[in-house]
């Protein structure tokens, strides 16, 4: 793209734009202008870099786990065992670090803090989030939390699983306290992000942006933020109590000191089940945008999708007991939790059917973000439906703590939450950095990830249904073929993500310049230049129907779309 066309694109979008394109990336320079920035876009970008870095870290541990499981007995863990530890302990550390990093450092902050920070205020038509300083503070808390994890890695790691179940975590596991402190600090980071988003959406909506004119991503983010605010403090106190139990033996969670390990599970899942929806709801919000924009069609059942986000958030608080069907919970409690668990499937299914209905009759373009959107629907359906097997009391007795559970939550956590996040990354990447990535490489990468994911985790449904328990270092020979297939799939995914890292980095330096609106979307962020200006909007944006695509035309000259109504 040559300079005159770029200038044309800029001037059509923002009338008062200065002659030299001034955007948030070049608004000010130097390390401190980033380290002390209060700009939600820069904070979002810094979060994204951090989250993707931790994703790579967690991914390496996943590959170590899968490689160890290539064959029964010791495969590679023995090589990493120090004189004082066994390969089994090394393996325990690997899956613990993988789980804890992926959950607390990647998926929970992934969509809200990284993408949400960047997109949410612009989509809303605001200049920033409500509390910019708190936003920066939240980022630094995330960094400190991450450093605690890095500390444990260099001190022999942490084991006991990402759930830190007592009594093991209270008595024997190593390095649990720094890891717990890390999670505690990350919890504050998450709370601050949530508070910021709730207040931003309540108080910074410009005139005309009514609740039911908000893009669906904002509804998803709002529901998420509510859970972040209301669930995370309970995790905080749980972790503090566990730290007290470990240091002072206060007698709360460990039977050795007079405590109750099931109480720990209740406390932990009271946060961690809603946390599942912290992970999935914003991804669902992204997919609602992707499907509508790339089908060029108004979302079917907008209000149902919006309300279903709130419904999922509410139901999410009432189902934690389904993690404890086999931990001495009374049959009556089990039955009640099972019934409420089933009710979550109603709003979830509403979303899936509405996405399908949105695509029906739309002009679908198989852009890279759309491919991720479609992958989400496919993988979430499998992940959601297998959840019903686990919510059913009789089948859960068999599936509990097997690879069936592992496969189920990977379909939801990775196949849905992370695939949705990567869909969002590909959707907003041209907006964030102002450059296009290589579409061919992106499609190859997507195919490797999508196929590799299913090869890895569908196999684990079969493993689990045949009785292979989770978290085991060793297994019987009859499971070997499934483990081998699963490991091959994980390598395919790794290859896909390496390609993604390559083309995303390459796009920053050599990518084609992106016009303001490359996808033909009509939400407000696409009315800004790419990348957006420092203040987001030179003048207060006119709020119109963000899903009305009738006035959006393709302009071959700039390689993007322009709006007739709002030139």
């Amino acid at each position, binding site marked *: 793209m040559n300079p005159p066309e770029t200038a044309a694109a800029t001037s059509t979008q923002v009338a008062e734009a200065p002659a030299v394109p001034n955007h948030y990336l070049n608004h000010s320079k130097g390390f401190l202008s980033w380290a002390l920035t209060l700009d939600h876009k820069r904070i979002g970008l810094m979060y994204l870099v951090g989250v993707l870095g931790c994703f790579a870290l967690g991914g390496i541990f996943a590959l170590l786990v899968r490689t160890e499981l290539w064959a029964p007995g010791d495969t590679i863990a023995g090589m990493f065992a120090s004189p004082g530890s066994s390969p089994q302990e090394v393996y325990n550390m690997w899956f613990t670090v993988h789980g804890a990093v992926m959950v607390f450092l990647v998926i929970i902050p992934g969509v809200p803090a990284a993408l949400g920070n960047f997109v949410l205020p612009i989509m809303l038509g605001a200049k920033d989030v409500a509390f910019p300083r708190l936003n920066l503070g939240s980022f630094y808390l995330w960094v400190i939390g991450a450093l605690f994890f890095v500390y444990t890695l260099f001190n022999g790691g942490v084991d006991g699983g990402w759930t830190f179940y007592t009594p093991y975590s209270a008595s024997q596991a190593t390095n649990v306290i720094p890891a717990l402190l890390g999670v505690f600090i990350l919890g504050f980071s998450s709370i601050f992000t949530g508070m910021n988003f709730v207040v931003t959406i309540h108080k*910074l909506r410009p005139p005309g942006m009514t609740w039911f004119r908000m893009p669906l991503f904002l509804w998803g983010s709002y529901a998420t933020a509510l859970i972040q605010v209301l669930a995370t*403090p*309970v995790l905080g*106190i749980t972790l503090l109590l566990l730290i007290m139990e470990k240091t*002072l033996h206060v*007698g*709360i969670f460990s039977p050795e000191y007079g405590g109750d390990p099931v*109480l720990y599970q209740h406390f932990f899942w009271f946060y961690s089940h809603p946390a599942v929806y912290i992970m999935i709801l914003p991804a669902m919000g992204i997919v609602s945008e992707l499907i509508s924009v790339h089908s060029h069609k108004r979302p079917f059942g907008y209000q149902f999708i919006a309300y279903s986000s709130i419904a999922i958030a509410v139901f999410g608080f009432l189902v934690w007991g389904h993690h404890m069907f086999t931990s*001495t919970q009374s049959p009556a409690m089990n039955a009640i939790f099972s019934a409420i668990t089933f009710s979550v499937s109603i709003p979830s299914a509403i979303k899936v059917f509405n996405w399908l209905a949105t695509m029906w009759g739309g002009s679908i373009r198989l852009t890279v973000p759309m491919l991720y959107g479609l992958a989400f629907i496919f993988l979430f359906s499998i992940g959601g439906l297998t959840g019903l097997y686990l919510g059913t009391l009789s089948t859960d007795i068999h599936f509990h703590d097997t690879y069936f559970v592992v496969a189920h939550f990977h379909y939801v956590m990775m196949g849905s939450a992370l695939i949705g996040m990567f869909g969002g990354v590909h959707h907003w990447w041209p907006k964030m950095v102002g450059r296009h990535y290589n579409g061919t490489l992106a499609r190859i990468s997507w195919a490797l990830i999508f196929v590799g994911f299913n090869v890895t985790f569908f196999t684990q449904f079969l493993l689990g249904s045949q009785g292979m328990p989770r978290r085991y270092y060793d297994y019987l020979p009859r499971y070997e073929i499934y483990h081998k297939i699963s490991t091959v799939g994980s390598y395919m995914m790794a290859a896909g993500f390496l390609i993604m890292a390559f083309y995303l980095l390459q796009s920053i330096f050599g990518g084609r310049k992106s016009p303001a609106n490359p996808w033909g979307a009509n939400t407000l962020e696409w009315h800004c230049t790419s990348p957006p200006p420092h203040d987001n909007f030179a003048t207060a944006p006119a709020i119109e129907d963000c899903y009305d695509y009738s006035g959006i035309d393709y302009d071959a000259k700039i390689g993007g779309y322009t709006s007739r109504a709002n030139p």
Partner: protein
Amino acid sequence: MSEHESHGDGHHAHHPHQAHHWDSMRQQFEAGKLGMWLFLATEVLLFGGLFCAYFIYRANYPELYEYGHHALDKVWGAINTVVLLVSSLTMALAVRASQVGNRKQLQAMLAITFLCGCGFMGIKAVEYKAKIDHGYLPGKLFNYAKTIEHEHEGHAHDGDHHDDHHGDGVAHAEGVFGAPAVSVVAPLEQTAQAQPAAPPSGLSASASRVAGDHAEHGHEDGDHGGHDGYLPVDGRPPNIHIFFSIYFMMTGLHGIHVLIGMAVIAWLLVVCRDGRFGPSYFTPVEIGGLYWHLVDLIWIFLFPLLYLI
């Protein structure tokens, strides 16, 4: 920060405390207030976990509370309740003073509130000191040996009687733990005897120290104004350390919140000197006040739950 100011000058004249992304001071104030209410919700949930633990253990082991709460000094607790209630009143008056722009009154009220906070923490320190002296501490710090040793000294038991006495304790433990059939903490019943078994190990060594320490004990008793402060070992439920764990964790977390609130008030005292607070801008005083009221409110629940019932 620097960029914050660099584009601020491009805007038309705003109130000096209005950030660039707000349309009006009122909008900014309401957002700050909503943010604080959300934060208070997280605080309630944070304490909610502890209250939940309190009630679960209360339901399963009421004897821990019935016995343990006698160790807490109701008089000091009641005085502290009054101190905090007064501080809430003065905080409310401080908010009022900031709204009408009365700087002198604002400073006076904030200062009184701060002093009430100091008074509360001072009394709390006195109470904690007594617990520490008696060995009534959470978890593994609970000094089973010391408390028994005191009883031994007070009633002039001899060594033989002491062993018998300990045997009684174990028998009693079984009786108590056999009773609550609803226990969801099944493993506890097996481990209950482990705790009372702990004292004898340190007992002989510390018992020999008793004679020499007599003066020190007398001094401790004196601290309590004639109130001896020790509870009878006879009839003490096993795992009594759990009551003191809950007591210290709840009041300790609350104490940390009081300290944070005092820091906020101290900050307000410093910044209010330039007269920045007035009818158009009093957000920090208002939300600082909200926080202080919550801290007060939590104590209103802690006092009866721990001291009175």
